[in-house]
């Protein structure tokens, strides 16, 4: 057996292990596309961002007992009475440049002790926010709410949100077409490191 040949082979194994480890370390398993964040910094108001969903194009689901026609087509929403006063919707969410940046759920429900309206916005490259809205509209037709919790980029943030319906926005011709606009104002809270 040629000892030099054996040494070359063993050196090759070590080099292969090193190259493989380096390849696994430096090659990302996931490439996450991200659109730039379009943020306005408002005086004493935190970071303001405007998101919207174009209706009907960005609507993924209307989950409600009496919804006709079904959205999406073929949806078999449970007819159980416990869901009768609940409306669950899913949307694609766009930024101010009309580019899709995430998905969102909106759950509305009525009960004996009032109602709830909530949003969860999931922006894959950034994080998610959980927004609690006041059921009643303000005088200028906004529905106001607050940030209850956030993940990743939004973790530990506080802030407010305003929702409004803009009929006919987006250029669609249908009478039911328009845009749901969400304006968020968030600010990061300094963590106490004492």
């Amino acid at each position, binding site marked *: 057996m040629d000892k030099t040949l054996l040494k070359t082979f063993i050196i090759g194994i070590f080099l292969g292990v*090193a190259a*493989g480890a380096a390849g696994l370390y430096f090659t990302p398993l996931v490439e996450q596309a991200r659109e730039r964040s379009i943020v306005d910094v408002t005086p004493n108001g935190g970071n303001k961002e405007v998101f919207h969903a174009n209706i009907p194009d960005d609507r993924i689901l209307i989950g409600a007992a009496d919804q006709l026609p079904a959205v999406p087509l073929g949806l078999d929403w449970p007819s159980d009475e416990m869901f009768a006063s609940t409306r669950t919707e899913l949307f694609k969410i766009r930024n101010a440049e009309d580019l899709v940046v*995430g998905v969102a*759920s909106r759950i509305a429900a009525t009960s004996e002790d009032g109602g709830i309206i*909530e949003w*969860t916005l999931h922006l*894959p490259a950034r994080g998610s926010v959980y927004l609690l809205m006041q059921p009643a509209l303000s005088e200028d037709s906004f529905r106001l709410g607050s940030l209850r919790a956030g993940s990743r980029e939004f973790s530990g943030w506080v802030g407010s949100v305003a929702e409004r319906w803009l009929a006919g926005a987006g250029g669609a011709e249908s009478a039911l077409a328009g845009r749901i606009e969400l304006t968020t104002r968030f600010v990061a809270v300094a963590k106490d490191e004492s």
Partner: protein
Amino acid sequence: MIKYIGALVGGLLLGVLLIVTVVFYNPMLQTNNLSPLAVSDNEVMHLSYSVAAQDALVYTNDGESQVSPNPPKVLQLWEPTVRGTTASVNVLADSRGRAAGIGVKFSSHSKDSSALDGKALVNSVWHIYLPQRGSIFVEQSENYWSYIQDIVFPAYRSSGDNWRGTWLSNITDGPGALGTALVAGGSGEFAGVDSVAVEALSAKAYSVDLGPVAMTGELSIELPPALAAPTPDEQVSQGQ
């Protein structure tokens, strides 16, 4: 000279194969069957659902993935920013198997995934509404490495392109201490509550063509003492 180059290249290939095998079958990584909530003194609420896309009320992704959207005509998430995202809506069942509410789950591949660390991570959030009780938000990072190792890879290796067996593991990997998910209560009896949760998968069948076929997910949410249902003794003392 040629034989030395051949030996070096052969060694290189064997080395790469070795490191890939060691990383994939990393003996330091084990299926996590023990829930961190198992040692909790507080009551734990269990909500379960079928992971199979055909059992979801709505399941959508980029439309080109292994698992097909359901219903077929649902809007697909094909834009670059959401291409690695799935959205599903399920009826959640309580521990007795009765419908308890609606759960919306958004999941996205995480760029923190790392083969060397044995992390195939997914960032996910749950938006849950339980009629007559209230709403909950759950944020977590899930690690599917052992799922790929124990179920997906064997299914691809199988001549029938499927896997059958019994497999149970916690998939929650953070962001909370002890690898728990973070819970924020929104309304009703959960209003203002901050807690922790763990999601586990119980698999029985997986198909290369369809993805999960017989698989149940269970979300276990720790309830603060004030929210736990009173014991029979407490009910008597409260005159109920």
